[in-house]
Each structure stands twice: as structure tokens, then as C-alpha cells.
């Protein structure tokens, strides 16, 4: 069974930081640890060479310094973009997109709960009319979160029309925040990606979209980049949500995603409970990751 450590690189790095001096092995271990955390070869190379330069400049041989520099380096990279959610319009429309099985529906349930704790009224639109029983799954989450839900009127209804009706309802009832669920789709399916563009277009007729959140699964590897690129192109993503951080995966690829696309991480999901979704703070993230 995988070790139930708090999600972090600590385990992988423990050996190297416990040593007395920085040597060739330290660098190799560091590189391996970063690659195993899915940072990808580009980011890993960049981080390692940056650290090498720093270590040379400050002329240190203490692994503790290296650890601190690594933490600061990662924090600095993560903090370049602003992770604040913008939900000032009324109703604030939030569109949630992503590939199959990353946890969109679950994230929406948690996000609704998150907003309810700040006493915002939330209306959820079940525009995933494709996957079997997706609407029921979302309805269960909505109930747990104490949010209203708009269901499709007929089976297999056009998702864009469900989204439209949801916003219409929100305007009528005065709900403050609208969250639209969409069906999972692989970024390679051109037709399905065009459908997202359509949902977006239809929603914009009702007013500006506050946030388009792309949900990424922490277990995803370098394909996360391809996913982000495609979804940015078709859905105009404004923020990333990283889910399943409670497993053994580190989700290092988000750093590459954030750097290559300029889209900030805004939320992180760290468990199966309804309260396990939090805002993203670079400092805490880097602290947890590096230890």
C-alpha cells in the first residue's frame, strides 16, 4: 500500500536533505524527485539549473539551504499569477470544464458548499447531458451543499440551452452565483470542444462570464499541458482547479501549465469530503510540497 504521507515531496527529499553536504548525488536525487512529481523535463531542468546557480553564487554546501531555496523558488514561480477568484458580477457565471473523470461534478458540489459558507446563494446548471446519471450525481451534491439546481427538461437536451436556462432562472430568482457543469471531454475531440465554444457563446448573451475553471486531476502527467492548451483555446479558461491532491500524486505538472499558459491555479481539492476544497495559496502549497 502506498505510504499515507501528507501530500508532499518530503519523503523523496528526506534522504538528500539529511546529508551533510551537497554533492553530485544530491542533484541527481533532486532531479529524480521533481520528475517523479510530474514537474516534467523542462521545468525540472529549469529549476535544477536555477538552484545550481544559486548554490554556486552563495557558495553554500548545506542541504538545508538548498531545501529553502527550492521552496522559495517554487513559491516564487507559483506566485507570479494572481490566484483570486473574480465573482463580482451578479449573477457571477462560473463555467466548469475538463476531461472525463477529473472530478468536475464533485468539485462543483464542493465549490457550491464553499460559497454557501460565505452565505452566497448558488444555482447549479446540470449541462452534462451526456454521461449516464451525471444529472443525478450533481443533484445529490447540490442537495448536500444546499444549492438549487436546474435540470435539463428532456434527456439529451443541448447543453448550451440548459446553461442558458440556468442563467435565466438565476436572474429571475436573484441567485448570486451560477455554476455550470459540463460533460467531460477529451481535448482531442474537435466536435465536443466546439460544443464548449457554443456554450460559452450562448452564456455570453446573458452577460459576461465571471470564471471558466478548468479542472485538472493531480494524477495527470504531462498531458495536462495539452489539456490546458485545448481548453484555453476553446473555452477561454481563466483559472485552474487541481483535484485529487489527497492521493500519492504531486500534481507538479500544474507549474508547467501555469507557466506556459499564464492561467493561475485558483482552487485545490484535497479530499473526498464536501469541505475539502480550498483557495490556492502559493506559500502554503510550496511549504507542503517541499516541507
Amino acid at each position: 500500500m502506498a505510504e499515507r504521507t501528507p501530500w508532499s515531496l518530503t519523503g523523496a527529499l528526506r534522504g538528500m536533505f539529511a546529508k551533510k553536504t551537497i554533492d553530485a548525488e544530491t542533484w541527481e536525487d533532486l532531479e529524480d524527485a521533481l520528475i517523479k512529481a510530474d514537474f516534467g523535463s523542462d521545468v525540472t531542468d529549469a529549476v535544477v539549473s536555477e538552484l545550481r546557480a544559486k548554490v554556486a553564487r552563495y557558495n553554500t554546501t548545506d542541504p538545508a539551504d538548498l531545501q529553502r531555496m527550492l521552496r522559495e523558488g517554487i513559491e516564487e514561480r507559483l506566485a507570479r499569477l494572481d490566484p483570486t477568484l473574480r465573482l463580482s458580477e451578479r449573477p457571477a457565471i462560473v463555467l466548469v470544464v475538463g476531461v472525463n473523470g477529473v472530478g468536475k461534478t464533485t468539485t462543483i458540489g464542493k465549490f457550491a458548499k464553499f460559497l454557501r459558507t460565505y452565505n452566497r446563494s448558488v444555482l447549479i446548471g446540470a449541462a452534462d447531458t451526456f454521461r449516464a446519471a451525471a444529472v443525478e450525481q450533481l443533484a445529490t451534491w447540490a442537495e448536500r451543499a444546499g444549492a438549487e439546481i436546474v435540470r435539463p427538461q428532456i434527456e439529451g437536451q443541448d447543453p448550451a440551452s440548459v446553461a442558458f436556462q440556468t442563467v435565466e432562472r438565476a436572474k429571475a430568482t436573484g441567485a448570486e452565483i451560477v455554476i455550470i457543469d459540463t460533460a467531460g471531454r477529451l481535448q482531442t475531440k474537435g466536435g465536443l470542444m466546439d460544443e464548449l465554444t457554443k456554450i460559452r457563446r450562448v452564456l455570453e448573451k446573458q452577460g459576461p462570464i465571471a470564471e471558466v475553471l478548468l479542472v485538472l486531476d493531480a494524477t495527470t502527467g504531462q498531458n495536462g499541458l495539452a489539456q490546458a492548451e485545448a481548453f484555453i483555446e476553446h473555452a477561454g479558461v481563466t483559472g485552474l482547479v487541481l483535484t485529487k491532491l489527497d492521493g500519492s500524486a504531486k500534481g507538479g505538472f500544474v507549474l508547467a501549465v501555469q507557466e506556459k499558459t499564464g492561467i493561475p491555479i485558483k482552487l485545490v481539492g484535497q479530499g473526498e469530503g464536501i469541505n475539502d476544497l480550498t483557495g490556492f495559496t502559493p506559500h502554503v502549497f510550496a511549504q507542503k510540497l517541499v516541507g
Partner: protein
Amino acid sequence: MATFGTLSDRLAETFKNLRTKGKLSAADVDGTVREIRRALLDADVALEVVKDFTGKVRERALGDEVSKALNPAQQVVQIVNEELVEILGGQQRRLEFAKRPPTVIMLAGLQGAGKTTLAGKLAKWLAKDGHTPILVAADLQRPNAVTQLQVVGAQAGVPVFAPEPGNGVGNPVKVARDAVKFAEQKLHDIVIVDTAGRLGVDAQLMKQAADIRKAINPDEVLFVIDAMIGQDAVATAKAFQEGVDFTGVVLSKLDGDARGGAALSVASITGRPIMFASTGESLDEFEPFHPDRMASRILDLGDILTLIEQAQSAFDEDEARKVAEKFATDTFTLDDFLGQMQQLRNMGSIKKMMSMLPGAGAMKQQLDNFDEHEIVRTEAIIQSMTKQERVQPKILNGSRRLRIARGSGSTVTEVNQLVARFEQAAKMMKTVAKGGVPNIPGMAPMPGAGFTGGRGKQQPKKKGSKSGNPAKRAAENAALASGAKPGGGSGGGSGFGLAGGAQRSGAPTEEELAALQRMLGH
């Protein structure tokens, strides 16, 4: 996703540099190995697997077999291919059925790996083979997983055993045990148990899976893993191996652009074979996994064998033979043209088919631009013609063409193009059927793609037997080229307009694709 090349693209690029060299120095090998390492890491192959793999390739590439080979670069490709196949598990393995039914199959995996959908696909696939499977809803954790399984079961036409409502209510171990008894009574010969998704680190849920396993003693435990998973594949696979000890692996979401990494890692780390691949959202998009073919796909050699099999199952053998005769005797009509086109559509998405061809990695962009609806439009035009017009396209005068254009919602120009294309195809195919060389620019002989028409080009000495059945000859060529037993693979072979055009573009270049698009309706 051109910016982030896939594993095939990356490796293809590496090998292109090698191919131009007559001799390999140690530095060449090191450079290539470094590229392979990077390509594999970018494709999410686990680090330890990459290290092991590159070590082996390097050792063999510097050894005697390469320096003595005629073309060292090709030899390196061969080595990489062999090593990939070796890691992917050598030969494929089939499901093992119990001596005394019911055969119990249990599914396990992370959340969102695609277990429930896979359960439906597996059930449908088995039902098609004459089995009487039953689906068991033992995922009582995720909200409405039970409902989802019921919907999937209905789509697959397979009964679902779901005594508990789910959403946290009920005991999955008991459900699984009852299901096996139920199957014995009702004479279902296969039981497919869908379990809750769990993280590798969740000890409690992992124990539940182990308990289910103990209770029903399954003949197969299939571990479903997302093809997009990253380095965590190792930790996850190990956790599941220790927790429930699976007997086989199913790779899901292989229709995305992340292909290979996880498959390599899991097969290599656990030593369990990958048995199935799930390649789309519809319940039919599911196929047994072929390690050798996957390796070829990674190396961008194209998935010729899969393509041939699909062609064989989709094309009606008699139909193909009839058409080939018609070509030879010059009685090919627009009706036949239409029939061929419809058969081609049965074969599945043309795009998907073309992407299996060798060299297709380089033309993904063009594939994306290719519009399948052209076929539908062409169909509409032909269906707007009268019976007589279809048999004798010669009678199509201006006013008839205008009527057809109106009837099919197209323009006269489009009708003209179609007729011209048909005549061209008929003429070309007639030449082929008679054993001649069709005049297609830039066509390269491609072993394995020979199942299309009679490949007179490759078989000059067989020209004497051109009075024989052209379809049969084509089939034999295909069998020869694909290494199958003679006579075993007939049926796929037929020479005709559309499919001939599509498959003929063995290693499609830009011109060929343009020619193909012309034939299909541009």
C-alpha cells in the same frame, strides 16, 4: 496539440536524424538515447522504467548487432521496438474463463479512471461473443454510481444486479457475494463487478476491495487505469497490486493524445499484462490490447494490423468480390459507388482509420481539417439521382444536374465534381483490377497496406494470372504483406473507389491527401 509532441512524434523526429547516417558513433547513440529518455519522460513513462529502458537500448545499440548491421539506424529502431514490446508484455493475453460458470470479473481502479463505462463496454463485448453477462453495482460510494451503471447496462442490453441504492448505503461485499449466487441461479455465465473508485493511499477502501475479492474469488481482477496518468502510475499500480492483486490491466481514454506512458510503466512495474484498451465514449469503442501494435504505434509505424482487422470485419466479402468483378467488366455504377461509401462508413470514423496509417503522426493537422461530412453530402447527391441516372451517368445533362443539385441541397458544380470523380475512380479501378498500375501521384509501396486493391505494382510476375479473381488476388497480397496465413485474410481485399482511395494512401503525403479529398468530395 502540435506544441507538445506526442511520444510517436518525438521518437519519429529522433529517428529521422538517425536514418540519414550510415554509421553510428557512440556519441550518436548517446544523443539518441538522451532524446528517447526525454521523449519517454514527456510521455509520462515512469522514471525507473525510463532508466531501465534507456540502459538496455544503449547497451544493445553499442553492441555488435548494430555496428555490423547494414543500416545501423534502422537496427536501433528495431531494438527500441523490441524492447518496447518486451515491456508491454510480449504477447497479448485473453480473458480466462472459469471451468465452472459463472466467470467472475472484478474491476478496480482510481476514481475517474472509467470503471463504470468500461463495465458496460466489457459486458457488451462479451454479450456479442454469445455470453450472458450480468453487471453488478458494488460501487455504493460515489453519488449515483448505481444509476449510472443501470443506464450503461440498458445501453449495452445487459441486466444489472443492483439490490442497494448506493450513495453510501449498503454493503458492497454482500452485494458482490449475492450477485454470484444470483448469477448461478439465473444461469448468467459471466459476472462483472463494478467497485468504488479509490485512491492508492486510502487504506479503508482498499481493504473493502480486498474483502470483495476474498468474498467472490474472481477469475479475473482488472485494474482500470487512465492513459493520461503521470508518474503516479507507479505508486498507484503498486498500491493496487498489494491491495487487491489484479490479474490484468485495462487502459482507458486511449483516444486522447496521451498514449503510451502509463501502459509502459504499469506493465513493466507490476508484470501484469495489459488486456484491453478503451478508445472512446461509445460502448463499442473497446478492443483487446495488442502489445506489439502499441509499440509500433508509439514508434509511428502505424497500426496496420488493427486497420486490416477493422477493414475485414466491416467489408462484406461477397460485396467486395462483386465490385471487383464489376470494375473488371466495366459495369461499375454510381449505386455501387454509394454502396462502397456506406460500407466505408461502417468501418468507423475515417479520421480514426487514417490516423492508424504509418506516417500519420506528421499529418494530424491535415486530418483535423478533413471533413467527414463530405461523405454525407456525396451520399445525398447520389441519392437524389434516379435509378437510370445512377446506372448510366452518361445521360446526366444540364437540366438533370440542376434537379439533382436542388434535390440534394448542393450546387451543380458539386454534382459535376462528383460525376467527374466517379468516372476517374471507375477508370482507375478498372486499370487496377486488370493488373495495371494506377496513376496516383506520389504513391509509395507500403507493405501491409496492400489489402486495398490488386497490387499489380508489387507483383509483376503475377501479371500472367490476371484472369483470376482480382479480389482474391488482393486478399492474398494482403495476407502475404501482413504475414498472415495464405487464404486466412480474404475479404478485406477489394478494389474500389472510395476505400481504395483512402487506404491506398499508405504513407500519405500532402498531394495524396489532396487526391484523397478530391475523391471523397472536395
